[in-house]
């Protein structure tokens, strides 16, 4: 197949070479007309990008196998498209608008191909097909890059959320509180465990309160994670108190047969704090004469 495609006249490079300026003009006009967002990109920038694309496309398609865009030959063109896709994505372009950058080349290019080949209908069809193949693949590639950029953005935000959602608060000298919010999965519990243990070392706190008021459900896996955290804290010499167990969760825990017997539990954070203070040998009392 490669010998056949290179043997038959691949007209794209020669057409681009021959009609470069006219192609560029038509293409830029096409995009400025089609895209409502083109206002956010300067015409000079667009022209520069288009010119570079045409140059790279000519180099890449010259003798290249149009059916295989994975080759080294296409690398620089794909890199350039990737950059365009990423910057446009960041500017708020939709994937369609970004892909249109490539697809809008079709009309000017096909017009030139038709003119070049004159009445030879068969050759026109074949060249058009080849060009379509290449441009479609490149257009889809921009969408793919767009998608990947989005995915990495989501992954980064998830990571940030993970850190934001596990604050360790010092509520008293020697008492740390960890209010947990949202569902717990193993990655999150791992982060929670590490942050808590690290804070215990840093502050030298003897009591750690894990408050699960903001946790919607507790299943066996989550309970096991909690128990592991408690055991690890115990190994380091700190006591853990689990607080904020809502009535439904207490019922679920019993129905599931989870044994939290070895862990100190309290209904509310206030009770847990009171228990923590008691263990530290501290007591809160109203000032004389100021009892409510």
């Amino acid at each position, binding site marked *: 197949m490669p010998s056949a495609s290179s043997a038959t006249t691949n007209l794209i490079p020669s057409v681009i070479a021959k009609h470069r300026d006219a192609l560029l003009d038509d293409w830029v006009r096409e995009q400025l007309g089609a895209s409502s967002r083109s206002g956010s990109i300067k015409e000079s920038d667009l022209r520069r990008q288009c010119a570079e694309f045409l140059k790279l496309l000519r180099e890449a398609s010259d003798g290249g196998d149009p059916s295989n865009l994975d080759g080294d030959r296409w690398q620089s063109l794909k890199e350039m498209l990737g950059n365009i896709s990423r910057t446009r994505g960041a500017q708020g372009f939709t994937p369609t608008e970004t892909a249109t950058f490539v697809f809008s080349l079709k009309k000017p290019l096909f017009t030139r191909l038709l003119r070049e080949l004159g009445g030879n209908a068969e050759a026109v069809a074949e060249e058009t097909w080849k060009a379509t193949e290449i441009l479609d693949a490149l257009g889809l590639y921009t969408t793919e890059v767009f998608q990947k950029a989005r995915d990495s953005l989501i992954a980064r935000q998830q990571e940030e959320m993970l850190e934001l959602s596990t604050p360790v608060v010092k509520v008293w000298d020697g008492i740390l509180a960890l209010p947990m919010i949202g569902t717990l999965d193993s990655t999150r519990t791992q982060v929670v*465990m*590490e942050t808590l*243990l*690290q804070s*215990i*070392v840093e502050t*030298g*706190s*003897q009591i750690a309160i894990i408050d699960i008021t903001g946790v919607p459900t507790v299943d066996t896996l989550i309970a096991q994670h909690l128990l*592991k955290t408690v*055991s*690890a*804290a*115990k*190994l*380091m*010499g*700190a006591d853990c108190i689990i607080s904020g167990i809502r009535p439904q969760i207490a019922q679920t825990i019993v129905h599931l047969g989870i044994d939290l017997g070895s862990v100190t539990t309290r209904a509310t954070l206030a009770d847990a704090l009171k228990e923590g203070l008691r263990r530290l040998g501290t007591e809160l009392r109203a000032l004389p004469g100021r009892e409510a």
Partner: protein
Amino acid sequence: MEHIPILRMGAFLLVTIQVDMHDQLAMTLQDDLTERIRKTGARGVLIDISSVDVVDSFIGRMLAGIATMSRLLNAETVVVGMQPAVAITLVELGLPLQGICTALDVERGMDKLRAAIARA
């Protein structure tokens, strides 16, 4: 042969592990420590592992073993200063060292030992 120093402080024995524990060293420590408890009649053993950042199941078992042996010889054991990574590893290994007494640092460990002896 390599030994981990065992210091005597009144009725207590103080062991600070500052090197990577390998199995032979752990066995030697077990021998030395039980021997010293018998000889000195110590009432408490404090093991500081704050500079240890790698443990395996053998070392974990050895720590639990030392605690049980000391109790047989009428001495309480407190393990102090365990690093978070070490604690997580032990828990993941399924060795939560039930029954072993722990403290955050040497000072609190000493307090715990004194309290335990006062109770006895």
